[in-house]
């Protein structure tokens, strides 16, 4: 039996305070109407289902438990997620999973620009397409895209893995296509399974860092001096 919180009659602070006070249990949030910061900062193994679309920073700083959004989400979905799971049935706008350190973010629809920007260990699985500059400066974790990726994928990427099944409009600076070795196939198969996505890992390509931006190059010395 889940506890229902209606955002038409309860304030956002009342909702989030109730979620933070609970150690366990199921919650349903109704009438979210695009509200910001819904279910942000969940720290225990509760399950939250949001019936409708949410605004900015839904499930931000997510630490434990599960958040399911039955709708769309705006900027910064699961921003800085540490662990646990966040899933949405619709699409997310920009900066989904930004700076996430761990856990799993599943977007069943499309994701907008800069999905997984500066991700630091989170795994993100997107059922549709991702927008431009996704995985920008991504440091660790995996971004899995079942659809297409827009321009400048993986710009200035560090050690994250990007798997794309569809087309890639263009790769960003220092991002290259890489070999799919058996361990990558296994990682991808696990992620697809965890995300409950029906796709064959063999259909994906892998992208990552060419590691050319890591070190100082003596050839750049003139530019370095000129910039001083």
């Amino acid at each position, binding site marked *: 039996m889940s506890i229902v919180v209606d955002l038409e009659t309860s304030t956002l602070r009342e909702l989030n305070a109730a979620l933070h006070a609970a150690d366990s249990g199921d919650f349903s949030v109704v009438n979210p*109407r695009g509200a910001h910061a819904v279910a942000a900062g969940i720290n225990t193994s509760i399950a939250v289902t949001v019936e409708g679309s949410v605004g900015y920073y839904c499930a931000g700083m997510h630490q434990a438990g599960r958040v399911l959004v039955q709708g769309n989400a705006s900027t910064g979905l699961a921003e800085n997620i540490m662990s646990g799971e966040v899933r949405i049935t619709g699409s997310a706008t920009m900066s989904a999973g930004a700076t996430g350190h761990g856990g799993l973010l599943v977007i069943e629809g499309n994701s907008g620009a800069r999905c997984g920007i500066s991700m630091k260990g989170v795994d993100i699985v997107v059922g549709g397409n991702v927008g431009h500059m996704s995985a920008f400066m991504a440091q660790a974790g995996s971004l899995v895209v079942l659809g297409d990726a827009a321009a400048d994928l993986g710009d200035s990427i560090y050690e994250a893995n990007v798997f794309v099944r569809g087309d890639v409009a263009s790769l960003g600076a220092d991002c290259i296509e890489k070999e799919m070795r058996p361990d990558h196939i296994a990682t991808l198969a696990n992620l697809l399974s965890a995300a409950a996505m029906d796709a064959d890992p063999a259909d994906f390509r892998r992208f990552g860092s060419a590691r050319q931006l890591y070190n100082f190059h003596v050839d750049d010395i003139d530019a370095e001096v000129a910039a001083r």
Partner: protein
Amino acid sequence: MCGIVGLFMKTDRYRSRLGELTAVMLHEMRERGPDSAGFAVYDQGQPGRTRVTVLAERSTPDWGQVAASLEAQLGAAVAVRSIRDHAVFETDGDGRAARQWLIDHGPDVDVLSYGNQIELYKSVGDPDLVASNYDLASRTGTHAIAHTRMATESAITTNGSHPFVTGADTCLVHNGSFSNHNQLRERLVQRGESFQTENDTEVAAAYVSWRLREGDTIDQALQRALVDLDGFYTLAIGIKSGFAILRDPISCKPAVVAETDDWVAMSSEYRAIAQLPDVVHAEVFEPEPSRIYTWSLAS
């Protein structure tokens, strides 16, 4: 910050509620722009009839007398109705001449808009108050665009509020900031545009006016804007019979669109759209960067 809303009624179904629904959307965008607000509403107009919306911020003109003088000048009947410091002149006579006469001879007034379908209201203050002061909720028509402003680039004044007119039945609202507006303003002054403020959005509006005057379509004007305007922007442009959206190539400034069989709505945030009728069946998407979207009764 700043908040944008646009609502376009594809069918007759909700046209009688255009103002009411736009006011609901505007209310949701209050926090994004609490210092001023404005809105443009469009109906289908009457053939050959021009409406000119003017603002008298620094004076309290006798509008009847202004209309009588304008009537004598045009040799055609002029109707006028006023609401607070705004007045709308209507005539079947030469609309361009009416607009020019009000600019040159109106008693210290600013012409906010002109055209066959548009009326435009704006003011400093709480967006809800602006909406109620200028009776947004009772207005009917085909489409509206509105704006809540958080001033960053210039002072909080009525003239710095959006929408900015860009030509007959055309106006523009903006969320973001332009970084090359001073240089562009100089170029546009050389090409005959005039400016009332130091506001960056007024420069973008003047740029679009200039291109439209040079014969560009709205699509062509916006294609060029992508090259010549530098900065962060989401623009909503009210045009005759519809509206257009453009986001810069980086698209940091938010925008969301929802569409049903009866309406198209755009806003800075989904919460402005969340209360529209039948929204659960709407197709919701984020406009792509550098892509011009237009919705029009004509197309």
